[in-house]
C-alpha cells in the first residue's frame, strides 16, 4: 500500500495515495474534470490538454497550469480545478477541437452518449468564433462491424492506443501529422482484431460507431435496457442489451470490476442478433398446430403424463442445456421428477461430459486459485493448453494480451495456431491427445527445448496462470493440467488455474448432481426404452450423438427461442424468450455465479424457459416438488453465504461457487494415437451456436471445411482448395485448407454453425 497523503482539491482536503493520478482521484471522487485522451484502461497521455487545472506543489508555492492526468499526487499539493485561467483554458481546448468538428449532431449516431457533447457542455463552450473552412476526410470501409466517419475526429489518439497498444492489433494506425492526422487502416478493409467493436466505446465522439446499430438506429435514450450477462462463451462478460420495440438493437459492455471492465469481444457485441431472427419462436406448436403457449403447455403436460403412465417412469428423459440458466436446468429436473424420472444428459458426448465435469469440479473445489479477468492481466507467466483462446473464450485472450504487454512469457500448447500465437514466447504444435503427455513432462520438470523452457519460466514466475480448454473432450488433459498447477502451487506462490468451456453455462450444468452420458440416453431412445425426450434450449438434433435418437424417439418436446433442427422435428414446440430477454443465473469459467435479467418485448415469447418448465411441472401437479426445488439438491454448489447462489443481484460481482466434494481422480491419458486424429476447430466467428446466427457474425465466419498440415495433405495426395473425402476414416468430407499452423497428425474439422430456416413463415404483428 502506498503512503496516504493529503492534497487540497478546490479548497477541500482529501486523503489520497502518494503518486496517484490526480485526474483519476478526481473522477473517483465524483468530480468530473473534462478529459478525452485519458482512459482508465490505457492511462494518461497528455495529448488533449483538456484536463488542465492550476496545480501548486504546496500551499505556499505558486501554482501553474498542469494536466491533471499527467500529475501524480504529492503531499500538500494544491489543485485548483476551478481556477479562472484553467477554466478558460479548458473552454479554449474545446473551441480548438470544435474548429473542425462537423455540425452533424442531429444525424450522428453518437448523439446522446457523446463524450464530446458532454465536455462541450461542461466547459460552457457555446459560440464558435471561427469562420474558416473545416477539414474533410474520406472514410474507410472497415468491415461489417464498425462504421468510420473521420470528419468527426478530435485526434485524441484513444482509438490507436486501444487498438494497437492495448489490444495489440496491427492494422489501425495514426497517419499523417499536424492538423491532418488520420486514424484508419492503410487501405479499406475488414478490421482484423476480434475486439474491434470496443473502438466504438473508446472513441469519445462519432468516428467509430456501431455499423449494425446504425442500420436500425434509435437514440440511445429510447433504448430499453436491462443488464445481462453475455451468452456467447463461458467468460460471462456483463452486457447491456438495448431493445427498441420488438428488436434487440445493440449490445454494449456493462462495467463490472470482477469480470469485464470496459471491453468485450466482437462475438459478444454483435452476436446477439439471433434474438431478432424471423425464425424466433413466439407460439407453441403441437403436432403441427400453432397455439398459445399456455395451451401448448397443457397439451405437453397431458402427453408426458400419458407416456409416464403407459410406459413407466423410465420412459422419459431430459436433455439439459449448457446455454440455459441453472434455474431452467433445475426446472427440467423438476418436470422429470414429477414424472418419476431422473434421467438427464447435458452434454453432447461422454468425452465432453467427462472433461467439463472434471474441470468444473476441480474449479469448484477451490483447491487452486482461479484467476478472474483482472487477475489474468497481472499474470507474469501464462501457459495456454489444448485450445484456441481467441476463438473459444475471446476475452481471456484480451486479458492475456495485457499480461503479454507487461512482458509475461506466454506459452501455447495446442494442435492449431490461433491469433494469440504471434505473441507467444514459444508455441508447441502437437496432435490432439498428445497435449496431456507434454503437460506431464512440464510437471516432471525435465525435458528439453520447449518443455524445459516452459518449466524454467514457470519456476521463476511469481504469479503464474495456466489456462486449459475443455471444448475438445480431453479429460486426461484436464487432469494433467490440474496436476501441473497443483505441483506449481505453493503457499507463497499461488498458481492460477482456469478451464474454459463451450457455452455460457457449461460450467454450471457440469456441476449437476444428476447427469448421464448422452450416449446412454441415445441408446435407450433408439431401443425404445425411452419414449419421450424433453429438450431444453438445445439443438440436440444437430449433435451427432443424439441426432438419431431425436429422429427415432416417439415424443420430443423442444423448448427453445428459435427454430432449429430440433424444433423442426419435434412433436411439440414450446417457445421461450431468448437469453437477453430472459433471467436466471449462470456460472462462468471461474465458477462465478452471475445473475442476469431481461425485458419483456412484444412479438416474441413471453416466458423464460425456466417458467415454461415450471408451468409444465405445475400442470403435472408437482407443486410440492417446485416448492422444494433447491439448487443445492440439483447442483453440487454452495457459496460462502452457505446457501446456493443466494443474494446475487444482476450486475454485482456475483459469487464464486464451491463444491462439497473433492474432484474425482483424473483419468489417465489415452495412449497417443499413431494415426490421424480429428480435432474440432472453433472459430471466434461462426462456431458458437447462437452468435453464429447473427448476420454480421455469419458474414465474418470462415467457410466450413477441413484442414490438414502440408505434410499430411501431401501424403494423402490432397491439395489446398480441393474437396477432401475422408468419409471412410472420419465420416467427414469438405473443402480442404492446407494449414502449416496445424499440427501433423491432425484432421481439423471447422465448426461452422448453419442456421436452419423456419418450416413455415411465422406472422408477427
Amino acid at each position, binding site marked *: 500500500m502506498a503512503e496516504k497523503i493529503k492534497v487540497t482539491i478546490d479548497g477541500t482536503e482529501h486523503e489520497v495515495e502518494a503518486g496517484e493520478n490526480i485526474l483519476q482521484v478526481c473522477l473517483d471522487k465524483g468530480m468530473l474534470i473534462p478529459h478525452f485522451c485519458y482512459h482508465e484502461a490505457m492511462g494518461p497521455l497528455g*495529448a*488533449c490538454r483538456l484536463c*488542465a487545472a492550476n496545480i501548486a506543489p504546496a500551499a505556499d508555492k505558486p501554482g501553474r497550469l498542469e494536466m491533471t492526468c499527467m500529475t501524480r499526487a504529492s503531499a500538500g499539493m494544491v489543485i485548483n480545478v476551478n481556477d479562472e485561467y484553467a477554466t478558460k483554458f479548458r473552454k479554449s*481546448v474545446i473551441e*480548438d477541437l470544435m474548429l473542425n468538428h462537423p455540425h452533424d449532431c442531429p444525424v450522428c449516431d453518437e448523439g446522446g452518449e457523446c463524450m464530446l457533447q458532454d465536455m462541450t457542455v461542461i466547459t460552457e463552450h457555446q459560440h464558435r468564433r471561427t*469562420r474558416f473552412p473545416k477539414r474533410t476526410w474520406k472514410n474507410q470501409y472497415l468491415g461489417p462491424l464498425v462504421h468510420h466517419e473521420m470528419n468527426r475526429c478530435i485526434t485524441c489518439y484513444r482509438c490507436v492506443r486501444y487498438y494497437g497498444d492495448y489490444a495489440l492489433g496491427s492494422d489501425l494506425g495514426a497517419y499523417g*501529422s499536424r*492538423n491532418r492526422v488520420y486514424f484508419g487502416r492503410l487501405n479499406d478493409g475488414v478490421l482484423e482484431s476480434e475486439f474491434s467493436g470496443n473502438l466504438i466505446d473508446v472513441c469519445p465522439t462519432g468516428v467509430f460507431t456501431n455499423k449494425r446499430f446504425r442500420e436500425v438506429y434509435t437514440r440511445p435514450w429510447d433504448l430499453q435496457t436491462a443488464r445481462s450477462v453475455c451468452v456467447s462463451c463461458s467468460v460471462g462478460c456483463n452486457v447491456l442489451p438495448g431493445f427498441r420495440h420488438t428488436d434487440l438493437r445493440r449490445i454494449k459492455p456493462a462495467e463490472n470490476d470482477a469480470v469485464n471492465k470496459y471491453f468485450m469481444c466482437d462475438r459478444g457485441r454483435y452476436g446477439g442478433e439471433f434474438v431478432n431472427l424471423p425464425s424466433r419462436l413466439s407460439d407453441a406448436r403441437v403436432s403441427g398446430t400453432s397455439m398459445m403457449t399456455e395451451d401448448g403447455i397443457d397439451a405437453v403436460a397431458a402427453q408426458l403424463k400419458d407416456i409416464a403412465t403407459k410406459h413407466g417412469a423410465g420412459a422419459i428423459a431430459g436433455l439439459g442445456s449448457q446455454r440455459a440458466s441453472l434455474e431452467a436446468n433445475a426446472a427440467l429436473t423438476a418436470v422429470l421428477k414429477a414424472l418419476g424420472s431422473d434421467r438427464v444428459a447435458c452434454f453432447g458426448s461422454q468425452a465432453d461430459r467427462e472433461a467439463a465435469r472434471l474441470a468444473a469440479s476441480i474449479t469448484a473445489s477451490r483447491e487452486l486459485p482461479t484467476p478472474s479477468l483482472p487477475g489474468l492481466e497481472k499474470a507474469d507467466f501464462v501457459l495456454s493448453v489444448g485450445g484456441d483462446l481467441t476463438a473459444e473464450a475471446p476475452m481471456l485472450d484480451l486479458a492475456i494480451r495485457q499480461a503479454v504487454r507487461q512482458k509475461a512469457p506466454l506459452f501455447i500448447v495446442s494442435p492449431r495456431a490461433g491469433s494469440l500465437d504471434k505473441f507467444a514466447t514459444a508455441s508447441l504444435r502437437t496432435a490432439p491427445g498428445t497435449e496431456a503427455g507434454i503437460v506431464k513432462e512440464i510437471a516432471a520438470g525435465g525435458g528439453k527445448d520447449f518443455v524445459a523452457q516452459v518449466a524454467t519460466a514457470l519456476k521463476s514466475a511469481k504469479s503464474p496462470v495456466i489456462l486449459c480448454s475443455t471444448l475438445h473432450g480431453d479429460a486426461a488433459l484436464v487432469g494433467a493440467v490440474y496436476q501441473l498447477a497443483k505441483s506449481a502451487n505453493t503457499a507463497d506462490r499461488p498458481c492460477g488455474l482456469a478451464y474454459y468451456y463451450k457455452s455460457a453455462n457449461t460450467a454450471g450444468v457440469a456441476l449437476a448432481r444428476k447427469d448421464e452420458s448422452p450416449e446412454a440416453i441415445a441408446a435407450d431412445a433408439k431401443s425404445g426404452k425411452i419414449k419421450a425426450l424433453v429438450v431444453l434450449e438445445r439443438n440436440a438434433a444437430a449433435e451427432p450423438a443424439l441426432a438419431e435418437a431425436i429422429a427415432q424417439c416417439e415424443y420430443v418436446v423442444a423448448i427453445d427461442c428459435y427454430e432449429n433442427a430440433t424444433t423442426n422435428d419435434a412433436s411439440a414446440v414450446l417457445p421461450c424468450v431468448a437469453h437477453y430477454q430472459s433471467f436466471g443465473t449462470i456460472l462462468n469459467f471461474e465458477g462465478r455465479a452471475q445473475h442476469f435479467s431481461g425485458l419483456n418485448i412484444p412479438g416474441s415469447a413471453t416466458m423464460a424457459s425456466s417458467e415454461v418448465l415450471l408451468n409444465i411441472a405445475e400442470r403435472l401437479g408437482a407443486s410440492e416438488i417446485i416448492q422444494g426445488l433447491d439448487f443445492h439438491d440439483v447442483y453440487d454448489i454452495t457459496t460462502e453465504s452457505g446457501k446456493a447462489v443466494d443474494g446475487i443481484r444482476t450486475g454485482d460481482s456475483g459469487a464464486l461457487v464451491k463444491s462439497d466434494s473433492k474432484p474425482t481422480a483424473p483419468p489417465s491419458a489415452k495412449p497417443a494415437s499413431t494415426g490421424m486424429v480429428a480435432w474440432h476447430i472453433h472459430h471466434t466467428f461462426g462456431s458458437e451456436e447462437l452468435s453464429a446466427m447473427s448476420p454480421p457474425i455469419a458474414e465474418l465466419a470462415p467457410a466450413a471445411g477441413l484442414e490438414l498440415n502440408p505434410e499430411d495433405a501431401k501424403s494423402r495426395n490432397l491439395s489446398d482448395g480441393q474437396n477432401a473425402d475422408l468419409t471412410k476414416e472420419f465420416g467427414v468430407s469438405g473443402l480442404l485448407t492446407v494449414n502449416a499452423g496445424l499440427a501433423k497428425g491432425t484432421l481439423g474439422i471447422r465448426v461452422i454453425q448453419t442456421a436452419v430456416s423456419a418450416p413455415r413463415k411465422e406472422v408477427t404483428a
Partner: protein
Amino acid sequence: MTTQKVLFKNIDTFKGVTPCSYEQYVKGGGYEGAKAAFKKTPHEVQQVIKDSNLRGRGGAGFPTGLKWSFVPMDNFKGQKYLICNCDEMEPGTFKDRALVYGDPHQLIEGMLIAAYALQMTKGFIFIRYEYKKGARILEEACAEAKKHGFLGKKLLGTDFEFELDVHLSAGRYICGEETALINSLEGKRANPRSKPPFPQIKGFLGQPTIVNNVETFCNMPHILAHGADWFKGLGLNGNAGTKIMGASGRVKNPGLWELPLGVPMRDILEKHAQGPSRGKAFKAVIPGGLSTPMMTPEQFDTPMDFDSIAKAGSRLGTAGLIVFDEGDCMVDSTANIMKFYARESCGFCTPCREGIPWILDIVRAIGAGNGEKDDMSILDDMSKHIMHTFCAFAPGAQGPFLSAITTFRSEFEAFIKSREAAAAGVN
C-alpha cells in the same frame, strides 16, 4: 575584433562545401583531443567538459556537463546510446550544415570523446533528410575514422569500443526535439515523450541516452586538446567559447561567422552582414532561429549570449539572425512564420495542432484585408493558450508570434481597420 577560429579552422563557409579530409584534419591537430581524452578517466573527461562551462549549442543553452551528470555510470552495465542531433530544421539556421559538410571528422572526434566520457558504445548521427549529401560525407568520414582506429573496437589502445551510424531522417522539424528524435529513431511516430523519465535515464530503446547538438560535439575536441580554461577564455564577458553566428534576410552579406559568445548583435548586423540589403532601415531581428521572440533596433547592442539575450526578452537559440527591414509587412511575415509551425506540428496535442492553424487562418485573413473586429482578441487568447502544450514546439512558435502582435500591433490593426473603413464606405 580578432576572433580565434576554432570550429571553423578547417572550414571556409564562403568557398562552398568541400569536406576537410582526414589527412588535412589530422595535420591541423585533429584527433589530438580524443587522444588527450583517452589518457584521462571517463569521469575526468566529464569534469573537463563541466569545467569548460560549455552550454548546449542546439538552442536551449543547457550546460552540457550538467546534462551528462544524470547518466548512470559505474554500476550501470546495460547499453547506453549517444545521439548527435543534426535535424537542423530551425528556419534561419544553417550552422550544423557548415560543420558537417565542412569538417565531418571534427564531429566524429567530438562524439568519440563524449562516448568515452559517458561510456556509451553505440552512437547515431540523426541527420535531416535535406542533408542527404551531408549524410554521405559523414558515412565516408566514419569509414575513414574506423580505418584509422577512431571508431570500432579497442580504440586508442584501450578496451573501449564505439560504433557510429548515420541515420537519415524522414524530415520533420519536430524530430529536432530530443524525445521525438528518439521515437523517430525507434521507428515510431515522431511525437515527443513526456518527461520524466529523461532520456539520460530512459531514452533510446528505454536505455540511458544522451542527445547533443552537432556544434556542441564539435567544441569537445578543442576543449580536450587545450583545456577548460582556454575554452572559457574564448568568449566575452564570462561566456565560454565561440559560437557560430549567422544572419539571413534583409542583409547585404548573409552568412555564418565564428564569433566569441557575447559579441554585440550590432557587430554581426553591421560588420559581418554589412548592413541592410536594400537601403531600408532594419525593423526587427529574430535572434536565434525562428522560435525566439523578435528584437527591435533599440536592442541591437545586446551581447549575443544566452543570458543577455534572455534578459532582453528573447532567446539566443541557435544565434541565426533573421533580419527584417522597414519594407517588410509584419502581418505577412507573421503569416509566413505561422505557416511553418502549422505545417510542422506533429499533431499530438490540441492547442498546437488546432490552435496554430487557426492563428494562421486569422493572420492570413487579416493580411488579405479580411480581418474582423474580434480577430486581435482571438489572437491574444491564442498566444497564451499555445503555451500549455505537451512539448516546447508551440511555445517556440509563440515567441515570434506574440512579439509580432505586440510590437507591431498597429500594423495588424491598420489592416483590420482599413477593411472596416472600406465596409463603412460601401454603406
